């Protein structure tokens, strides 16, 4: 990229939360028509920096200059007025409102006194067409899958016609195809004069769209480099320092692993036959799903989000009821009237960490032991032994590298990735020898944490335990699984053994082509 004029500068920004220095003299610069990648591990301060720019946080010191002029941003309102828009890491949406209402809220609509939103709908439709976003605008947001909700969030910013667009991990909930579509849209926007700040943990994304990359670590600048100088290794090194031993890592390993040989005589840990699920509206979301998982196996479910993965997970867990089929655990059939599999010790990492797996208002320790509170060693004569809980929490915080001031920290204070680390720590600390069901376990994690999770999963496998891994990240599945079942419209269209793995073949199956 040729050196463009600088339109935004953040100079020496500092921000602390009760003694925790989240930003320490951070500098950031954005050029006109630039896509600027903001990288850093979980809790590095990316979201905090952008929240300062958007007026959600007030910096303790430091200046923001827009086109060379010093700017005081006291609230998001000021930011919006100055043409700054932000897509937040955790959706800010009202579930029981329609997409249109969510999008137009706060902007001045044409028919203020009748709320006839037809003009806005037309305008939105045009936006959707231009950026190839496919959303039914009248549906309640809460009904939509995560990927679509992400797009609603992007739409919200685009609708306001911004000059500077901040995207805080916009791709965490998108499928690869959607990511590609988003990138095309970003290029279009940049050509039209926008500048974009792009936060992500996925190096490939950074290397494919960003013009420049700023690296943060523990609230401090590490470097800022043009893309031409960046490669995966320099970025990882910059992000984590020497924390990640590339040689040991699963992600960067060149070694080829064989799939586990399945001994047909051994009883599978989990055997699902002809599983069906029908929604309250009568829509069939799972059709005749059959598979089994053997000891020492990681069984993967691939598929574009919204093809029944969530229903599969929740039916197994017992949150949703099955309409037919059988589920056997260690050879014994479960009738699934209650959450039987959970009672048998299943460990579940839900996809929607905030909705289904986390209590933001209580402290970190309580979140870490949730679900195991009645078990040893936390429970003593029916009471919770808090000293034990705090001891165990400290250990988990250290082992899983959770960035928090301690077990007593309010859980909501953690950064997105650190919330995910809490979920991971909870799951792996209490799983024992039972089945684990992990649904997108590495969503929002930085690379070392991801690597850590992979190591943990492989270690389980080595010990002979079974895991069901549902993921939208095909690379992750290819890296870890012994077998992969591909889901399409509620059906398992094929199950491939490790020796048959082929990225393109699986990609085709994900779009409905049977093998």
């Amino acid at each position, binding site marked *: 990229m040729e050196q463009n004029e600088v339109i935004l500068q953040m100079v020496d920004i500092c921000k602390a*939360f009760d003694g925790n220095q989240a930003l320490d003299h951070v500098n950031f610069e954005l050029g006109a028509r630039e896509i600027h990648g903001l990288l850093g591990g979980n809790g590095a301060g990316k979201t905090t920096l952008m929240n300062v720019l*958007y007026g*959600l*946080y*007030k910096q303790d010191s430091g200046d923001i200059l827009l086109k060379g002029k010093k700017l005081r941003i006291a*609230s*998001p*309102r000021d930011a*919006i*007025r100055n043409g700054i828009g*932000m897509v*937040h890491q*955790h959706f*800010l*949406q*009202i579930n*029981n*409102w329609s997409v249109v*209402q969510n999008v*137009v*809220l*706060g*902007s*001045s*609509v044409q028919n*203020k*006194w*009748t*709320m006839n939103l037809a003009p806005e709908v037309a305008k939105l439709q045009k936006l959707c067409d231009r950026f190839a976003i496919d959303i039914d605008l009248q549906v309640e947001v809460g009904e939509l899958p995560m990927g679509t909700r992400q797009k609603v969030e992007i739409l*919200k910013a685009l609708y306001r016609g911004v000059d500077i667009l901040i995207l805080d991990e916009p791709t965490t909930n998108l499928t690869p195809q959607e990511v590609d579509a988003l990138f095309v849209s970003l290029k279009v926007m940049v050509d039209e004069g926008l500048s974009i700040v792009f936060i992500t943990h996925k190096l490939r994304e950074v290397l494919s769209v960003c013009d420049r990359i700023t690296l943060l670590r523990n609230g401090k600048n590490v470097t800022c480099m043009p893309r031409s100088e960046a490669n995966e290794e320099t970025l990882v090194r910059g992000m984590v320092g020497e924390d990640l031993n590339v040689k040991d890592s699963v992600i960067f390993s060149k070694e080829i692993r064989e799939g586990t040989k399945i001994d047909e005589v051994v009883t599978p840990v989990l055997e699902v036959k002809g599983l069906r699920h029908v929604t309250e509206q009568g829509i069939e979301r799972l059709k005749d799903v059959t598979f089994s998982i053997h000891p020492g196996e990681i069984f993967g479910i691939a598929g574009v989000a919204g093809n029944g993965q969530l229903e599969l997970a929740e039916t197994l867990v017992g949150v949703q009821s099955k309409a037919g089929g059988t589920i056997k655990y260690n050879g014994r059939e479960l009738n699934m009237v209650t959450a039987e599999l959970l009672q048998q010790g299943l460990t579940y990492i839900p996809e929607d960490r*905030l909705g289904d797996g*986390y209590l*933001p208002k209580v402290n970190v320790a309580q979140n870490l032991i949730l679900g195991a509170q009645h078990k040893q060693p936390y429970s003593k004569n029916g009471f919770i032994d808090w000293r034990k809980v705090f001891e165990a929490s400290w250990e988990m915080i250290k082992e899983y590298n959770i960035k928090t001031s301690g077990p007593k920290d309010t859980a*909501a*204070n953690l950064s997105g990735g650190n919330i995910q680390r809490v979920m991971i720590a909870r799951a792996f600390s209490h799983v024992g020898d039972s089945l684990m069901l992990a649904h997108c376990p590495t969503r929002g994690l930085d690379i070392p944490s991801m690597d850590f999770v992979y190591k943990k999963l492989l270690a389980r496998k080595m010990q002979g335990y079974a895991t069901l891994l549902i993921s939208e990240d095909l690379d992750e599945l290819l890296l870890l699984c012994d077998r992969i079942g591909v889901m399409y419209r509620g059906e398992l269209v094929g199950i491939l053994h490790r020796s048959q793995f082929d990225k393109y073949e699986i990609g085709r199956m994900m779009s409905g082509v049977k093998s």
Partner: protein
Amino acid sequence: MDQILHEVAFFLKQMMLTMVPFILAAQGTMLAGRTGVFNVATEGIMLTTASVGFIIAFQSNSILLGMVAAMLVGGLFGLVMAYMTTSLKLNQFVIGLAFFFLGTGISTLIPKLIFGVSLVQPVIPTLQNLPIPLLSKIPFLGDIFFNQNILVYVSVLVSLLLYYFLYRTSFGLEMRSVGENPKMADSLGINVFRQRYVAIIIGCMLIGLAGVYLPMVYTGTFTEQITKGRGWLASALCFFGGWRPLPILYGSLFFAGIEVLAYRVQIGTSAIPYQFLIMLPYVATIVVMVLTFKRSTTPKFLGSNYDREKRTL
């Protein structure tokens, strides 16, 4: 036949008259609730405004002045409450309960200070009926619906206006968003604090009007505990109506019906103990709540203060 018809007409007319304080108090509580502020001081505010409004009306010989005073006092309560919950971020329930006790105390203190302890109660003339021309001449229905005091019309009008405002204007959309997700509202440039201040103050003014209605229509004087729990029932009504103006209007009618019924039965017979009858609205609340609970909606952030720099997720 005629006798029954007459009974029914009388019952309905009483019901219309009785629903007013329920409507005004509940809509006032609802409005603040829609921005996420749960006002549990309604009962106390009603008591104080009933007391002050009555005294002003008595001293000035003007019903209108009494109403204005009641609304102003209500608004003042609202302002202080908004300041404490929204600006100082103190716990809404603690502040609300404190205001309830404060209001209850003030309501009996002020008359004592002004009138001293006297044997003859000061009285004001009760609110006159205001027949609406033509409409009130409709046979049977006219007298029931269109020959009422002015606040009956006002309360229905307020409900309809609130409905229109909240659900049919962009300003209403903004106000509701603050109770559903204040962070989102803030991130879209909506002034959460201002919305809350406005909703609380206007809400408390309505509650003030509800309070002063009692001496002005029922008794002509202020007596201790004149509200008889209507302020608490207003909170119940909000849940009952899912914090929506129109269902609250219907709910108020229902509560009023029960109150009138209880009163009629009490006069007609002594077989049923009085205590049981005044319990009825509460029993009805519980029954209806159980029946409608699944469909009931509550603003997501009802009861929680907003702090921009705090993460809530």
